[in-house]
């Protein structure tokens, strides 16, 4: 049945209920002393409308499923269905096709049998549609009767309607928990499967990473699943190189903008920095791979490094650092702004210069906030994917040389999961285990950082 009919029916009946209930509430109101009744007529109206429309919609949702079964039963019982193959894909296809011909969504005939079946489908659909509407009307009538019986001058319709609104709000916020739970369960489930094949010790402390997706899944070689090089690469690119770029630049930008720049300058520069934050990571990745990495390679060649990698950790890290600058600067900006004006005034009134005030009073006072911000930035950098997918390597080397190629957790997740669909191989599951580690680490970083920042804010409230 086309979803339009039930929708229109529910809305139409709901509207009718709304109008009637409102009229009725008005009669109460006119009759009431001082014209005061417990709730405004419009709340009575909404009460009735919701009572009619919600059960009706729920019924139609259910009916959609039930009638599907009934229609199928009807069609299969029809003589035309005798010609159908007994089971399998073809049978499903013919039925699907007949159904789409019957409902007019498509005319393509791949299987001739479906044409004959279209008619029984058509019959069944219209019969069950009628039955559905009839039952729907009965339900709507019953609901309306129930609702109208309760409409009285002293009926607290508003409270009832508002309770429903609150329930909707509560449901919406539960989505967040569901998502978190979904992520957690997904990751834990697959990770546990992975650890059933590869011991966590080998995974967390092994120094050799070279999973073999085509190897024997039943008997994997745990020595190929040592993730230390990935963790190191992730840290080196995201937490070291990127932060060496982002922290000083971000901090100094924030200080300049909050303490020195004229409001007019600030008004232009801040959005520009936000644009820097709004550039998609895939663009940064392209920039890193196409412009920065070759430049770094050339530079390395020029200073006499033999055979430098064209996907050095440095290239990915530098670009990631640039991406993080606005993040650090806005966190630092917020933190410095959260230091009460009184601190700054206090210092200036002592005869301190701006730079003394900033370095000796503002930054120390804002430090918890700034540290929290940097932790958030780190968590963002180590979870960043596209830049490293495009500019870092897939080779898991354990090295402290920024010109070497390194890989990261996110690169490996992408590498292990793109395309490869077999969910029971440890190499695929390893991606989930890596995801889980990444999730836990960023979670911990964020959790601590948010706490730190919150406590810092509270200190000044």
């Amino acid at each position, binding site marked *: 049945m086309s979803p339009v009919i039930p929708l229109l029916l529910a809305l139409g009946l709901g509207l009718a209920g709304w109008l009637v209930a409102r009229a009725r509430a008005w009669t109460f109101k006119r009759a009431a002393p001082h014209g005061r009744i417990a709730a405004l007529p419009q709340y009575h109206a909404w009460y009735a409308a919701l009572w009619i429309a919600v059960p009706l919609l729920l019924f139609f949702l259910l009916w959609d499923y039930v009638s599907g079964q009934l229609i199928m039963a009807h069609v299969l019982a029809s003589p035309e269905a005798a010609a159908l193959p007994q089971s399998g894909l073809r049978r499903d296809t013919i039925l699907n096709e007949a159904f789409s011909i019957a409902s007019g969504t498509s005319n393509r005939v791949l299987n001739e049998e479906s044409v004959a079946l279209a008619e029984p489908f058509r019959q069944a659909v219209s019969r069950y549609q009628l039955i559905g509407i009839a039952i729907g009307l009965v339900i709507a009538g019953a609901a309306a009767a129930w609702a109208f019986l309760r409409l009285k001058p002293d009926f607290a319709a508003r409270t009832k309607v*508002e309770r429903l*609104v*609150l329930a909707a*709000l*509560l449901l*919406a*916020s*539960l*989505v*967040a*928990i569901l*998502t*978190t739970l979904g*992520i957690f369960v*997904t990751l834990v489930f697959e990770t546990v499967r992975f650890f059933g094949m590869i011991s966590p010790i080998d995974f967390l402390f092994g120094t050799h990473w070279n999973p073999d997706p085509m190897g024997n899944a039943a008997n994997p070689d745990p020595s190929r699943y040592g993730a230390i090089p990935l963790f190191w690469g992730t840290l080196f690119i995201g937490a070291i190189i990127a932060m060496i770029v982002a922290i*000083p*630049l*971000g*901090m100094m*930008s924030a200080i*300049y903008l909050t*303490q020195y720049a004229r409001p007019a300058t600030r008004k232009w*520069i801040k*959005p*520009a920095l936000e*644009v*820097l934050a*709004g*550039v*998609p*990571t*895939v*663009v940064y*990745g*392209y*920039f890193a791979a*196409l*412009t920065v990495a070759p430049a770094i390679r050339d530079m390395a060649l020029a200073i006499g490094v033999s055979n430098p990698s064209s996907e050095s950790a440095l290239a990915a890290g530098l670009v990631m650092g640039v991406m993080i600058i*606005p993040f650090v600067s806005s966190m630092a900006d917020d933190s410095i702004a959260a230091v009460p004006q009184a601190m700054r005034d206090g210092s200036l009134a002592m005869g301190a*210069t*701006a*730079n*003394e005030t900033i*370095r000796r009073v503002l930054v120390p006072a804002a430090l918890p906030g700034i540290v929290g911000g940097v932790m958030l930035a780190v*968590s963002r950098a*180590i*979870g960043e*994917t*596209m830049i490293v997918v*495009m500019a870092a390597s897939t080779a898991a080397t354990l090295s402290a040389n920024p010109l070497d190629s390194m890989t990261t957790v*996110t690169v490996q997740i*992408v590498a292990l*999961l*793109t395309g490869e669909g077999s969910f029971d191989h440890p190499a695929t599951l390893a991606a*989930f285990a890596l*995801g889980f580690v*990444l*999730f836990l680490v*960023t979670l911990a970083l*964020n959790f601590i950082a948010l706490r730190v920042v919150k406590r810092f804010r509270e200190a000044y409230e």
Partner: protein
Amino acid sequence: MSDLVHPTRTPAFEARMKKRYAAERRFKAMGLSAVVFSIAVLLFLLVTMTLNGVGGFQRAVMSVPIDFPAMGLSAPAETEDQGAAIRALQGQGLQEVVQFSADEALGEAGAAQINPEAWRQVGEAIVNDPTILQRQATFALPASEKLASALRGDGQTELQPLAQDLAERGLLERRFDTGFLTRADATDPQMVGIWGALKGSILTMIVTLLLAFPIGVLAALYLEEYAPKNRWTDVIEVSINNLAAVPSIIFGLLGLAVFLTLFPSMRSAPLIGGMTLALMTMPVIVISGRNAIKAVPPSIRDGALAVGASPVQVVFHHVLPLALPGILTGTIIGMARALGETAPLLLIGMRAFVATPPDGFTDNATVLPMQIFLWSDEIDRGFVERTSAAIIVLLIFLLLMNGVAIYLRNRFEKKW
């Protein structure tokens, strides 16, 4: 008292002042250079992309006059749809006609470098206007990628003299390629377009917006206005804050493990992509929504409560309308982020090659940033320009969205 020399009025103090002011100037200069550096990087990025990308909006075309009356093609039946009509023309030897005309006009070496798909363009022209068969018409047919790169000055050296020669004779030139904005992905950089990816992005964003916006706003209202302070709301609060910080690729893992398990046949569909991105965007909307709601001064709530408004009325009559600009700003920023997002979509199959734009939410599709990623991996030099052109298109959308957000924020920034 006044005869006592104050330590702040000694020559030693004055001398120290000089140093202090110098330090001050140095510090300020450092700050300025940090800002300048950041802006410079931004500009450099934008300029590089623009310079690279301008060429990406063009392609090399060759002028081929075709004398239809001499070729004896007959117009396909009007009833036929375009595909069948073109197939009919193909049966009549349209390919050879085009090849022959090209040979005539460009010489054999040149004609060999007509794009193998070019004859379809002629076919489409005939289907669109059968009267063209009565006259001679000149077509600007795409050249092969090899010739196109020779014209750019890279690629195989042996083709470069040919390219130069044709260009000098005015038969080969680079023209603005309107098709770039209307075609979908292809294997040949001469033939690619971004409409497929752009449409995929639009469909995906619609799903994301429809899911994330209402859920995000309602959740923000609940948490900020009604949630009792208890362990449950703490859990909600913590999960939202953490979701906002979970790396995007983790959402891809979720989409892969949950959505694609529930709807296995919807791999690569904007519906699934949109759902995945909605989960990612929702917390952003919740957080910015809460901030906007928090910024509505409590005195307004008090005022409404004190005349006897119920909490729901307070929120829907006063708080929400006042917070709306802030919520919208946050939503736009969240959507901009989702629009530029690639990583989670990599894992749910939105990286497949699809040669036509998607028709609906359940069609196979890719998205603009993913198209950039895919093209960036292509080896053909032609793709470098095309990639940058696609980046320009993406950046224009994002700059517009950011611009609107910044405008909204400035416009409605209230000092209560």
